[in-house]
């Protein structure tokens, strides 16, 4: 290996690491606030990338229909609950949020998609279609299980992953997609040639991380999420609704996932089931951070990215083996550091 290749691999590793860092961030956030180990995080990456790819082909992506269907189901459930509890005044909002909004978005997509609008319009549209799936997912799968144990929530998360992967196959087919790069520019920095897309990914990640930092530090919603993460009961006592916190968290997680997908789509071919492995690499990073520390998780993410790119050079067939075996020494290290008193489990 010479320096050129090493630099190229490092660049690759950093680019992927930036994506894993974003996902690790989302995973830590979701776990801290809702105790859900969010295995389907990766599906949002795939949905984001493939929705954009569909739009670029001038097709209406299947996620538009998923949005409408999920909206109908939620409207039915919430509408039924509102009527049963004799609170019909809630109905207009339920219908507006879960029926009118998704239908309007799907209609917009149906009208816009064949015209192949500018790239930024497509990106905005893809985000608008995928991000609302986050809170809807929370409403359908996790909100009824708010008080369940971490393990039950984990099994639900895995079940949701199954369902979303299957739906991805229905919507996008078995073929992978790669979107055109946002920028074809290349910069020569000394011996290294840096692709514009890599800069986009790393830059995008940094901007998103800063935005999240500001959100958590400066806004009331961000602070209430942090409060919920620190002490769920305490947060409820001061009037922070666990449901609102959950929806907000899942919105953020979906947004982070979809943006990651859109950023990474020009670099790697994304298949309907690619999200799982990408998300799990985020997990490896998050576990390095003990599922609680954001900075450690980010460091872990870069580590995973670098390990992946270098091992794909030396032993490409064993790339996944190496990355996922990395978790074992990490777990060992964690287990030596943690003095836990296990949570009591109810039956």
């Amino acid at each position, binding site marked *: 290996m010479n320096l050129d290749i090493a630099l190229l691999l490092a660049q690759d590793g950093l680019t992927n690491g930036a994506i894993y860092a974003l996902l690790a961030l989302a995973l830590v956030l979701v776990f801290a606030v809702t105790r859900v*180990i969010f295995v389907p995080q990766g599906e949002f990456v795939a949905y984001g990338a493939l929705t954009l790819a569909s739009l670029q082909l001038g097709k209406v992506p299947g996620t538009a229909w998923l949005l409408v269907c999920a909206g109908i189901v939620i409207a039915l459930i919430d509408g039924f609950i509102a009527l049963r509890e004799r609170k019909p005044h809630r109905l207009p909002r339920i219908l507006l949020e879960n029926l009118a909004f998704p239908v309007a978005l799907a209609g917009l997509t149906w009208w816009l998609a064949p015209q192949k609008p500018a790239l930024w319009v497509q990106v905005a549209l893809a985000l608008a279609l995928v991000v609302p799936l986050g809170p809807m997912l929370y409403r*359908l*799968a996790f909100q*009824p*299980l708010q008080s*369940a144990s*971490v*393990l*039950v929530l*984990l*099994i*639900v998360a*895995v*079940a*949701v*992953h*199954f*369902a*979303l*992967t*299957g*739906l991805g*196959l*229905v919507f996008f*087919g*078995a073929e992978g997609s790669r979107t055109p790069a946002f920028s074809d520019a290349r910069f020569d920095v000394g011996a290294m040639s840096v692709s514009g897309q890599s800069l986009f990914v790393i830059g995008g990640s940094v901007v998103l991380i800063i935005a999240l930092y500001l959100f958590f530090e400066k806004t009331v919603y961000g602070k209430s999420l942090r409060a919920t993460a620190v002490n769920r009961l305490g947060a409820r006592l001061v009037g922070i609704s666990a449901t609102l916190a959950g929806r907000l968290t899942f919105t953020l997680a979906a947004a982070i996932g979809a943006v990651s997908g859109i950023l990474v789509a020009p670099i790697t071919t994304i298949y309907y089931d690619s999200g799982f*492995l990408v998300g*799990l690499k985020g*997990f*490896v990073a998050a*576990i390095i951070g003990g*599922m609680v520390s954001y900075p450690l998780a980010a460091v872990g993410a870069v580590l995973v990215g670098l390990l992946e790119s270098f091992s794909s050079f030396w032993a490409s*067939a*064993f790339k*996944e*083996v190496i990355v*996922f*075996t990395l*978790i*074992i020494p990490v*777990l*060992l290290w*964690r*287990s030596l550091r*943690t003095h*836990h*008193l*296990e*949570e*009591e*489990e109810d*039956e």
Partner: protein
Amino acid sequence: MSRSRILFAAFLAALALGPAFLPEFYVTLLNYIGLYSLVALGLVLLTGVGGLTSFGQAAFVGLGAYATAYLTVAHGVSPWLTLFIGFALTGTVALLLGAITLRLSGHYLPLGTIAWGISLYYLFGNLEFLGGQTGMTGVPGLSIFGFALDTGRKYYYLVWVLVIAAVFSIQNLLNSRPGRAIRSLRGGGVMAESFGVDTAGLKIIIFVYAALLASLSGWLYAHLLRFVNPTPFSINIGIEYLFMVVIGGARFVWGAVVGAGLLAVLKEWLQGILPKIVGQAGEFETIVLGILLVLLLQRAREGLMPFFQRWFPQSRWVEAPQSAPALPQRERPRPGEQILEARAARKQFGGLVAVNDLSFEMASGEILGLIGPNGAGKSTMFNLITGVLPLSGGEIHFRGERIDRLPSRQIVRRGIARTFQHVHIRPTMSVVENVAIGAHLRGQRGVVAAALHRERAEEATLLHEARKQLERVGLVEHLYDQAGSLALGQQRILEIARALCADPVLLLLDEPAAGLRYREKEALTDLLRRLKGEGMSVLLVEHDMDFVMNLVDRLVVMDFGERIAAGLPREIQTNPMVLEAYLGGVE
């Protein structure tokens, strides 16, 4: 014969006669259900009972399948030998993975299992000598004593005999001394450890046992299909195994078979029908499976087994014999001999000093009360004596031996047994089984003897002992009730019976009278006096002053972690420092 036995006999008969009547398709399906059941049975033990979730069982199936495929194809080894080589390989891998990951709390373990599940899958697919993604063909069939199991119909009997054997081994195991310890793992381990259970060791044992069942399933799979490739050992299949257990009902041994059957049939049916609906080929059944599972967990977290159980009235699971050979008792200390001594015992949590250089001693046959306002550090002191928490400083001696560096399960061995301020019982286990956990250290037979039920004589003595202690504390009419159905006061009494089962010479009771009615308190006072008469020493934390003053020989009063007074009940009642601590001084 009870109704459940008749139903079970009918089930066995149907199972045995099935292949004679069923078309090939259903025999194949039943073979697969049997293979799935073996893996799911391991998961019931591991996840449903032990509380350790694994998504990686498919990888263990793969180890068993690849071990036999490679050795029989490439080296011509006999399949009956490779079965055990597969066990050795899988057992070693499970032991290593378990040693690393089982120490982790709750959610790290399942994440870890996903990771190594993926890792092993890619390893199978990328190792040249295992045939890569295309796999290996030409795996030989099986024959038993020259009788070739060359059709699915013949193979069926091997599969289902093994499944039934696995069901019985797990049922036997759960209904035994080590089984009770396994069933108490979920409670967090503090209780189990304080009665001498090596919880870390037990976790590894059930993890390895589940892995071996998976390996057996893999071995059967390889010789049934005569072909292996990586696909059936992927993480998705590992997830499906867990789904089976959840669908069936993770707590129920037969739930594994029910869940495996339902999932296999459902998958088969969906794979037939869904591509027609969608109009293209693909694994669409995952959508329905995923949604069904979410609904199931939202609506019926116990799985479907409770619905089936209505048809199978449960016969009583344990029987505590009226008479059995008595267990040997440990030698009692001479009355008046010093039994327990705390020397400047200290516990700090960060900056908070919970127990501040507390010293006291106890003589054998004494009832010593440890009292003080809430937050004085009394329960912390209990946890220091019993090794639940490590000391920050000082020493604790028991019968002349220093015990403050020993773990709980070594301390109980020396004759100290305790109850808990917040009761630690297993609510779904019967009262007598809960109490029998206390006698854990008085039996020796291990997991293998238990799975084969070769330890019934010992088991009878343990259950008889539990019954005897329940008679002693007056709970014998609740022998077979679910412990969770008792009133809180009775649960506390249950804990005393459990502690007595450990044959202690020193009993540590943390607020035993809380939640008791007047008559029950009188009965408890009588019981403790009788125990004292038999030479038992009792250290007692209690807030009910009438109860305490009536009962104890001496008192030690704590406040803010410090000893503020000690003496006879009469002296303590008039001690100004004590009055100030309890009632507040005049400022």
